[in-house]
């Protein structure tokens, strides 16, 4: 068996039959992605409409046309409306198999309109990648037995790749001394200013105090996080997946505690895709509801 076949077995598990629990889980997961897609579309739309004045940093497609047109004429809100309607129709498999891709493109435009103000956040990337995987799955693997496996397998592939990519970005951007604890001090200082500015007050929590007291402790915190990123790709192997996911979730809690950056959608998604929930559901669900079969 070649490495490609091995990898495709790990990601798509072609030998395993589709079970009722798998279908129920898949639709619940799709609902989660749809919920966050609509949530982000409206949050970004409202902010763009009422707050954005000038383009500070053009991202993605905004490099090729003047995205500031979305700051006026209620275009960002109209776009959110389209994303909502087409997204819901796609969930219920109403319309065309390529329309999930339309949601993807409209969501991209919504993102580059909202985040044209200088900061590039990544906490919404996993939802974006999931929408893309649903779009590719619906278009190229529309069969009821193929789509859930392709979507979940490709999402797992890109999540693993993303973490390992982040490790190498740090290695290339800084070098082996990236985990020097004083770097964490600088970031804690930077984030403390953000909190002070946003809330009017800031005081360090337990982990921040611990890191600020000792360079060795700060270095250890960074090293554990960095190593966890490196092994992100091991999610591709189904037996290792729950363990890698647990470490990644732990790393996110560490980032939240040390740098006050929350990744709610990220962590919920890791919990959903990193563990074989269908096994649990199969204990209680013996057959797939008819209406659900129509929506797969």
């Amino acid at each position, binding site marked *: 068996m070649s490495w490609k076949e091995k990898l495709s077995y790990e990601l798509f598990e072609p030998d395993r039959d589709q079970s009722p629990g798998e279908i129920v889980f898949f639709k619940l997961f799709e609902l989660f992605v749809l919920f966050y897609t609509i949530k982000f579309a409206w949050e970004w739309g409202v902010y763009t409409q009422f707050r954005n004045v000038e383009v*500070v940093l053009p991202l*993605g497609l905004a490099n090729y046309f003047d995205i500031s047109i979305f700051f006026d004429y209620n275009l960002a809100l109209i776009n959110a409306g389209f994303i909502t309607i087409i997204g819901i129709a796609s969930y219920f498999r109403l319309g065309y198999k390529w329309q999930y891709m339309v949601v993807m493109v409209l969501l991209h435009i919504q993102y580059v309109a909202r985040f044209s103000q200088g900061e590039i956040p990544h906490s919404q990337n996993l939802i974006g990648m999931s929408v893309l995987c649903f779009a590719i799955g619906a278009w*190229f*693997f529309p069969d009821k037995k193929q789509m859930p*496996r392709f979507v979940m397998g490709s999402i797992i592939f890109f999540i693993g790749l993303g973490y390992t990519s*982040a490790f190498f970005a*740090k290695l290339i951007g800084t070098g082996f001394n990236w985990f020097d604890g004083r770097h964490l001090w600088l970031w804690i200082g930077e984030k403390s200013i*953000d909190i002070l*500015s946003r809330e009017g007050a800031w005081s360090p929590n337990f982990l921040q105090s611990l890191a600020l007291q000792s360079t060795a402790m700060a270095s250890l915190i960074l090293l554990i996080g960095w190593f966890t990123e490196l092994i992100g790709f091991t999610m591709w192997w189904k037996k290792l997946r729950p363990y890698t996911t647990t470490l990644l979730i732990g790393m996110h809690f560490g980032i939240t505690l040390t740098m006050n950056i929350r990744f709610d959608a990220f962590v919920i998604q890791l919990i959903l895709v990193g563990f074989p929930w269908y096994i649990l559901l199969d204990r209680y669900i013996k057959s797939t509801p008819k209406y659900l079969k129509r929506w797969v």
Partner: protein
Amino acid sequence: MNKLSAKRGLKVIGITLLIYAVLVAPHEGEFWPFSIYPMFSQAGNPWTRAMVLDVTDQPADEIWEMHALEDRTADAVPVGRYGVDQIDFSNFVSKTENWTEQRRNALITMFGADEIQDQQWMVSKVKGELVGQDSVAIRIVPFIKITADDTELNPNLPESDYFRGAQ
């Protein structure tokens, strides 16, 4: 999913990965949702953020003085209370190169003249850097004073701090 579909699935992932690379390469690693995830990749660099200080009751001859964070006497204005995203605000202040009248007035618009009322707020840059082997120095640079209907630049700073290119 059968074996053949699984093989095709991997091929589709490969093509997507290729598109991923083609899009992020010329766009500095970012083409949402594609990314090389470069956050925190450049460690140890000095940083600049921004905050607003309420200088209404501060002595007029002291409000423009640069000072260390621990010597701050003016209260921080919690920008979140005014519906302003701190990250966007910080980028707006730290990345603007030409402080035209329109840009300066955008600061008032951001918070709302009705909210500022008769107060005097100092939009300040906050700079952090590693000093020596074991400490981080954070200093506050008063940058633009805003009131409900006017803005004023720091007379102690050179003009090049406000205008770096064509106006």
